[in-house]
């Protein structure tokens, strides 16, 4: 990752303050219930919860793309409003990269945000090159999105946000559908950004990646309320809590001819056996 691209950010400032935030679609379907959360600059947070627990809704709200039906959000001490200042500070990577790749080639995709910010030509060029190389996609620059694999699309989506150099990164299920190498690259990118003081908020169901991308975890329940907010290690140790909220599940295994029941991380694959 090109280190010179991402300058240091002052720490410990109160970044977000959510008070009694609720959201409902069409005034009928509740998507988030009475959420109180404070987030400081530079924090690494994992938003955990099963499908439909309101993680994505919360992220969209932190991105200033939807606004609470009840309650309020403050960003850097002021009521959160849209505007180019806010957009340059907060970047969001959507779960489905196809919605984020609406330009006809990779370079144009990355340029889109930079042009909207109205940056000088020289900065635009530098940022384009830096973000292409940070995500290892220089060879894809002229490619149309329809000819990219899901992993490549995801890299482009991240590069397009990275280029805008926001202070806050909101990531929605960033590892969903990715191969191990792309997942690794993504985790390293998040670590580098975090070392530079960026705030990283990741909504995920992939418990495996949490220890590497977060220090704090917030669990949303199926009732769309915050059920637990605290140190990531404490939360990951509480298997009963994780199981109750559908983040891990128990199932039977056969080891050396004997079957036994033990908790299994959700939703899939590998778990170490000693």
């Amino acid at each position, binding site marked *: 990752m090109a280190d010179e691209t991402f300058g240091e950010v002052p720490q410990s400032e109160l970044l977000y303050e959510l008070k009694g935030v609720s959201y409902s679609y069409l005034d009928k379907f509740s998507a988030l219930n009475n959420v109180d959360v404070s987030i400081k600059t530079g924090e690494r947070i994992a938003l955990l919860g099963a499908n439909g627990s309101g993680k994505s809704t919360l992220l*969209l709200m932190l*991105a200033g793309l939807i606004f609470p039906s009840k309650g309020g959000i403050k960003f850097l001490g002021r009521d959160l409003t849209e505007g180019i200042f806010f957009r340059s500070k*907060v970047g969001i990577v959507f779960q489905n990269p*196809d919605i984020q790749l*609406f330009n006809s080639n990779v370079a144009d995709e990355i340029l889109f945000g930079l042009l*909207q910010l109205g940056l000088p030509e020289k900065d635009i060029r530098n940022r384009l090159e830096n973000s292409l190389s940070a995500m290892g996609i220089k060879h894809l620059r002229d490619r*149309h999105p*329809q000819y990219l694999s899901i992993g490549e699309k995801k890299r482009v989506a991240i590069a397009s946000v990275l280029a*805008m150099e926001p202070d806050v990164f909101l990531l929605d299920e960033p590892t969903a559908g990715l191969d191990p190498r792309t997942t690794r690259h993504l985790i390293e990118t998040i670590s580098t950004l975090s070392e530079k003081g960026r705030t990283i908020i990741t909504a995920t169901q992939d418990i495996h990646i949490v220890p590497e991308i977060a220090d704090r975890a917030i669990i949303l329940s199926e009732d769309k309320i915050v059920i637990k907010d605290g140190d990531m290690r404490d939360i990951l140790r509480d298997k009963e809590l994780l199981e109750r909220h559908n983040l891990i599940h128990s199932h039977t295994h056969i080891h050396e001819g004997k079957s036994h029941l033990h908790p299994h991380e959700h939703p899939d694959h590998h778990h170490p056996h000693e």
Partner: protein
Amino acid sequence: MLSQDGWHKKFLEKSITNALNFFKEAVFSEEIARKKGFLQLRDPRLKMIIFLALILTICFVRNISHLIILYITGIILAAASGINILFFIKRVWFFIPLFTLFIAIPAVFTQNIQAAIIFVLRVATCVSFAVLMTISTRHGELFKSLKSLGVPNIFIQILDMTYRYIFFFVKVFEETHLGLKSRLIKNFEKKAAWRWISSRIGHLFKRSMKMSEEVYMAMVARGYTGEFKKHGG
């Protein structure tokens, strides 16, 4: 809802596969644009100006034989550019009914057959040149030449996005069809097949509505405020 003979399954299968393949080949393939034929080697901007002028001229031609000559010119140009003539003619006539049928039919009933023929020929010739332009030019080049001819950025961006997401939904439809195929043990009755297709069209429509909202959000998140900013400005 299931029948024993294979005809209906084949009917559904064939219509979907043919339509998708034709669509992909006709609209999205850059295979022809990459060839080194007569039209591919011309400057795309020059090509666009000449073709636009030709299309405008065709709109005012009232003589059937002149129209036929122009139509044949289009076919000769296609042949000179390494385009399969049959594919080209099929592709042009595939779009004709959409434009002409409803407009030309009343003319036939009011006995003005000559006017109807002129009208259909005119559309066919115009579409021929428009198709020649688009299939002999790579999409990137096409949009760039539109830009250099002074077409406002917002139109180009909308065209570009339309193209991008039509392709996306063609793929979604194809995958849905594969999903159905993998679970289809017996054959579909014609009625059930049509019901399936119409429900999928409805589903795609809903999905595209949702997706358009999300794409808009993704644009806003990167600073879009209702205006596409151009490079260097």
